[in-house]
């Protein structure tokens, strides 16, 4: 849960946020390439959820399991929503939405890691 892949999700979220910030500054809506990137981020969170739940069943350690699963299952829905939004919002507000989501997802990963660690 604290491995390379979760770090990659954090980096991916930040890259998407930076990308969206640039679009926001130059007054552009989300282009096709960034839409795919957001969709890819969604895919990464699906993988993270599956991997996290598999890892959870492999340990007897005490931590907030219900909370852990809740976070993992909800997290892919957020970038999925951002993807859907950016497809339909042809204004720069769409870039703003993707920027926010790009920043929220890394925070969510850190929170998931805290729950995993029992904080």
């Amino acid at each position: 849960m604290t491995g390379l892949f979760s770090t990659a999700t954090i980096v991916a979220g930040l890259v998407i946020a930076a990308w969206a910030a640039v679009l926001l500054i130059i007054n552009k809506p989300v282009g096709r390439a960034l839409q795919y990137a957001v969709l890819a981020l969604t895919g990464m969170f699906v993988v993270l959820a599956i991997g996290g739940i598999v890892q959870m069943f492999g340990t007897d350690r005490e931590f907030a399991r219900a909370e852990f699963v809740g976070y993992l299952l909800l997290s892919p829905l957020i970038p999925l929503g951002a993807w859907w939004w950016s497809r339909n919002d042809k204004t720069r507000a769409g870039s703003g939405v993707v920027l926010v989501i790009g920043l929220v997802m890394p925070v969510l990963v850190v929170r998931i890691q805290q729950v995993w660690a029992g904080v």
Partner: protein
Amino acid sequence: MSETRATATNQGFGRVLVVLYAIFAIGATSRSVLQISTRFDEAPIAYSLSAFAAVVYVVATIALARGHETSRRIAYLAITIELIGVLVVGLISVLFPEAFPRASVWSYFGMGYLFIPLVLPIVGLWWLRRSTGAPSSGTRA
């Protein structure tokens, strides 16, 4: 229709605000469902408060997204309650930490959430003042 050309509540920056509120609504709701269903007796006050905060976020999200005159009034009310909530609960949690053995979204002025719970209602009220109501869509049924 209106003499000003200000942005409608649910357009432009308002859309980003709706998303921020939606994230807090989803987060607070799922968290409080979990808290109340699994360990309510540990901290009934804090967890009831989390549930109340969740309801406020949900109402504010919907009201901001709709953006009509009535929705704007509801949004004003919800966001004002939110601001008072985060200030009062924040203050109580600092002065009497034992009152909140378990954290709620609003304890310590939302410190656990990067103070976003404190900033969000201020930004929300600013946006409501700055933006205008969307023209009501055609005839009222």
